[in-house]
């Protein structure tokens, strides 16, 4: 089945976000809403939504170009045009009559074989198709996206008994490959999977926080990091999604769940929540929520609400002893602790995990599906069954029994079998309802380093990086430092990788990839700062030189190197991309040469490679200055591309580099790219550039002078820009009549880096960034 054109009906936050994400995937999409007569034109709602999205942060669009693929329209004038689309997604108000009325209109115009899906989160599929035609029921399913649709990887799909299998497989495949979604097939039950467990957790964690007399900050600290839940915890999450959503979701679930469902037991009136909503404290979209930013007296003080009195006070760092135990004591240390925090953690976990174990078979196919839904839809690091394993199924079962509570049958089975997950002959398996273990399914074209690592030994490994054989003659270099920063141990493994492939008959390509959140945040700043503070300048220069040599060897190796970033690829991480033969980027890649932010310049070939890219770009005007000016702006302003598409527009990725939407397909795609390059591979020719020399540097200096006068640049920005201009203009001896070699520019990079790293303001920037994670403007 081909999805070449789509339509989204309903231009609210979810509908427009889904339309934007379809556009991100290159699919032309109509965005329809009811016509407006307020003078903004009949397409006012959809047009307004597109305009809002162009300004929103985080951005629903991956590039401004994607926005052009969304055509605004309205449900009266443009309904007939639905016949041009292959997939129609309904995202209108959660009202059965409204939806069915719309379905009838859609049914009258849509083309044979097209798919209709609903993004409902509360209405069962059975009701949606009740009374509809057989043809409609065959082509209908629920596709439940999570907010925001670009960023949340979960897509829940519910198919009915009538839904034709090709519709399910076609949409699943499209959403997996083209939209990058992790698909969880759900049964037609209230809240499906993620919201069923998630809402239970939210209700339970809120009520228990009140009962255990925890402050908002304490509850979030307990619910967050120790459980592997995002640090917004519970109240921070409610602020983020909007407090007013809570009663709606609650009412809908309570109305749909059978009376014996444990959910009813954790509900109770919550006057504070009602009061906050009534007063406009609906969370971050409103005046604030459980937290607020007090801007009185020109300040910015983060305040938290007192759950008993409803008064705000400056947010305090939680001082619970159970939290101080930290990582060493683990989750067990927390739930075993006798203070409020420990008791709270156990109270919530025991109920949520029991609930999940009780209902898993009713809502999904496997425990793995439930875990995956919570990971991809709520960004939990561990799903409920993985959390059970972390504490031990037997421990939980026994403690529940000791407390006189029911032990869910599946939990008892797991306690007996040992755990919900196990590794068997190098493969990860999960516990089935029958007490057997089954292998975790991986779709065709999904290759995970996690699986390879479980089943094999590294070719070579040190504290910072490892080399893995990923099959078919390709090896993978995995960096595994904090934020995957680059240090000399990474160079050592890179060197081994090059020697291994060059010496072996078996290997023919290298992929640089890891499964951390970030590809690489850049060079290890801490190391550089330590060396600077102790005056070890030769050591710093050595690191710069080693990096240049390592990246050069990689670039000129006799085999192709493909970098496969996801998340941050900054500074030295970005330079890996620039020095590779090709990049297979995850769509959610954030790429930039940000060295100027910490007071230095790219010195592992970033300057020369970016200059070369810009000089080769046929769209730029000719002459020695345009590439220099572009590189100067890109590096000098530390521009970060906020998607792989933006990275392509900025020039960090080449036109021939490719983009993968599904994180789990990235390695396989990168490997295929590497293999395709291996055939008849020849290393690139060394770069030679025509650069303007001192005339160009003078021109750049004047541009910076103007920024300084405007107050846009600081005096140290000017100093960094001056060092950068030295490199990009080709140095004091360069002249436009004689090309400058790559080697010469690399020497300029080193000199400029060393000049800047010896300055106090640069060291202050590094220190500030290391401590706060933010840039210092000095």
């Amino acid at each position: 089945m081909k999805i070449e054109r789509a339509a989204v009906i309903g231009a609210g936050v979810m509908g427009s976000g889904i339309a934007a994400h379809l556009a991100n995937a290159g699919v032309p999409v109509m965005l329809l809403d009811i016509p407006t007569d307020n003078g903004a034109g009949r397409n006012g709602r959809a047009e307004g939504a597109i305009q809002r999205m162009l300004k929103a942060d985080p951005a629903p669009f991956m590039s401004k170009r994607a926005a052009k693929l969304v055509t605004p329209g309205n449900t009266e004038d443009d309904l007939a045009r639905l016949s041009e689309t292959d997939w129609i997604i309904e995202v209108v108000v959660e009202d059965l009559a409204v939806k069915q009325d719309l379905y009838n209109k859609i049914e009258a115009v849509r083309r044979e074989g097209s798919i209709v899906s609903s993004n409902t989160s509360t209405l069962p599929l059975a009701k949606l198709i009740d009374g509809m035609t057989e043809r409609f029921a065959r082509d209908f399913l629920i596709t439940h996206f999570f907010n925001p649709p670009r960023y949340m990887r979960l897509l829940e799909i519910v198919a009915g008994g009538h839904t034709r299998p090709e519709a399910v497989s076609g949409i699943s495949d499209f959403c997996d490959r083209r939209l990058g979604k992790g698909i969880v097939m759900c049964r037609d039950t209230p809240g499906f999977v993620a919201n069923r467990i998630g809402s239970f957790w939210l209700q339970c964690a809120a009520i228990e926080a009140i009962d255990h007399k925890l402050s908002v900050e304490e509850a979030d600290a307990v619910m967050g990091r120790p459980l592997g839940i995002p640090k917004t915890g519970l109240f921070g999450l409610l602020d983020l999604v909007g407090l007013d959503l809570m009663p709606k979701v609650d009412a809908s679930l309570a109305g749909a769940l059978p009376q014996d469902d444990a959910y009813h037991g954790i509900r109770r009136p919550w006057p504070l929540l009602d009061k906050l909503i009534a007063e406009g404290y609906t969370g971050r979209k409103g005046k604030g929520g459980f937290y607020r930013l007090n801007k009185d007296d020109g300040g910015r003080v983060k305040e938290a609400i007192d759950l008993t009195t409803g008064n705000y006070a400056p947010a305090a760092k939680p001082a619970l002893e159970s939290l101080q135990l930290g990582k060493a004591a683990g989750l067990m240390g927390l739930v075993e602790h006798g203070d409020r925090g420990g008791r709270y953690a156990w109270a919530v976990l025991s109920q949520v995990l029991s609930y999940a174990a009780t209902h898993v078979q009713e809502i999904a196919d496997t425990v793995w599906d439930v875990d995956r839904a919570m990971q991809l839809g709520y960004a939990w690091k561990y799903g409920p069954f993985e959390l059970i394993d972390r504490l031990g199924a037997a421990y939980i079962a026994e403690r529940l029994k000791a407390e006189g509570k029911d032990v869910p049958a599946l939990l008892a089975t797991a306690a007996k079998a040992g755990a919900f997950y196990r590794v068997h002959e190098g493969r990860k398996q999960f516990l089935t309802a029958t007490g057997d273990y089954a292998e975790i399914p991986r779709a065709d074209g999904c290759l995970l380093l996690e699986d390879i690592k479980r089943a094999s030994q590294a070719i070579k490994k040190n504290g910072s990086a490892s080399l893995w054989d990923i099959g078919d003659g390709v090896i993978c270099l995995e960096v595994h430092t904090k934020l995957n920063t680059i240090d000399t141990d990474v160079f050592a493994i890179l060197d081994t990788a090059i020697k291994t492939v060059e010496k072996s008959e078996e290997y023919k390509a290298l992929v640089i990839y890891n499964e951390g959140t970030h590809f690489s945040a850049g060079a290890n700043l801490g190391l550089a700062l330590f060396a600077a503070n102790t005056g070890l300048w030769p050591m710093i220069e050595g690191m710069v030189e080693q990096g240049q040599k390592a990246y050069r060897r990689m670039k000129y190796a006799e085999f192709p190197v493909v970098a496969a970033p996801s998340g941050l690829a900054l500074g030295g991480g970005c330079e890996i991309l620039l020095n590779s033969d090709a990049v297979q980027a995850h769509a959610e890649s954030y790429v930039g040469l940000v060295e100027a932010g910490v007071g230095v310049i790219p010195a592992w070939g970033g300057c020369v490679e970016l200059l070369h890219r810009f000089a080769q770009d046929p769209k730029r005007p000719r002459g020695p200055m345009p590439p220099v000016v572009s590189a100067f702006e890109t590096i000098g302003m530390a521009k970060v591309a906020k998607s792989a598409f933006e990275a392509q527009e900025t020039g960090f990725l080449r036109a021939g580099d490719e983009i993968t939407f599904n994180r789990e397909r990235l390695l396989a795609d990168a490997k295929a790219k590497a293999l395709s390059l291996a055939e008849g591979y020849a290393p690139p020719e060394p770069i030679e550039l025509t650069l303007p020399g001192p005339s160009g540097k003078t021109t750049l200096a004047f541009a910076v002078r103007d920024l300084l006068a405007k107050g846009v640049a600081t005096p140290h920005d000017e100093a960094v820009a001056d060092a950068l201009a030295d490199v990009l203009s080709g140095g004091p001896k360069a002249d436009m009549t004689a090309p400058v070699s790559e080697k010469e520019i690399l020497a300029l990079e080193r000199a400029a880096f060393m000049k800047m790293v010896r300055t106090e303001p640069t060291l202050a920037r590094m220190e500030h960034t290391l401590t706060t994670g933010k840039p210092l403007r000095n």
Partner: protein
Amino acid sequence: MQRNIVIAGYARSPFQFAHKGALTKVRPDEMAAQVVRGLLDRTGVDPAGIEDLIVGCAFPEGEQGLNVARLIGFLADLPLGVAGMTVNRFCGSSMQAMHIAAGAIQMNAGEAFICAGVESMSRVPMAGFNPMLHPDLAERFPAAYISMGETAENVADKYQIDRTRQDAFAVESHRRATAAQSAGKLSDEIVPIRQGNHTIDTDGCVRADTTAEALAGLKPAFKTGGTVTAGTASPLTDGASAVLVTTEDFAKANGLAPLARIRAVAVAGCGPEIMGIGPVVASQKALVRAGVKVSDIDIVELNEAFAAQSLACIAELGLDPDRINLDGGAIALGHPLGATGARITGKAAALLKREGKSLALATQCIGGGQGIATVLEAA
């Protein structure tokens, strides 16, 4: 002067914001050619009688590069016998084109000239694509490369032109341009520009709703703590203009209706760091050459590069604000660098006729520290 020289026609394209306006996608050579063609059609002059097409352009490269005047001649279907020359005196380029024509006429080197100007600030950036400054000059005399915004701040400081006066000046410029636009006083001079299937026929930079309060809210655009904002500077603009400069005899013989006679011209240099004051000496020189006093001047077209420099020039020259830029100036209408000189001189000539007055002055400042001026009299 031995021969009487007249301005026998004036036309221009609509002026539109660079980068976001309706002319962004129009090539400058094409835009200028349509204006030249429009001027020929409106005046009815026989192109075979034209000696030369002289085109002013401040950054003559890219699509306005090569010898763009010659190319505009080809595009406008001028007879191949009409020559073509491109002139650069930055913002004074197309007024300079007129001075060159007048000089040529005086030395009997032709009877009729088309003097045009063009600038697509969308398609050729200020300073061009390959600015490469002389490092030693930059070191020894940095003012040689000073930014225009900085010069405006310098003039504001030196002549004590405060923010409030600059804002008020800009509001007045928009008010006059809006009034002229709605009274249809600008449409006569505009040659609609065709691009594909649509036509651009209106100025795009005029903001009818500008108020002093709105302008007061803008941040300084060039200097922390400065007084010059985007609202009191002329915007980056795309546009083209053209005038027909002939001997009075040629005009008569060809049945042309002269707008004004060129009485005197001048250029002068000044400190580049206060280039905005350039019109003062240039105008004084031209007035002396014309043998008239500033109080004799009825109509003034003073290019509003910035409100600050305009106000400084008005004060230094002792001009009467009521006689200046009757239909608005560059802050409201826009300032396509190479095209402005022919616009304001053609406009001054047209206003002399429309208002039935005797003497006019057109003058402008020029980056690098210069001024240029032309004195006109009723034909």
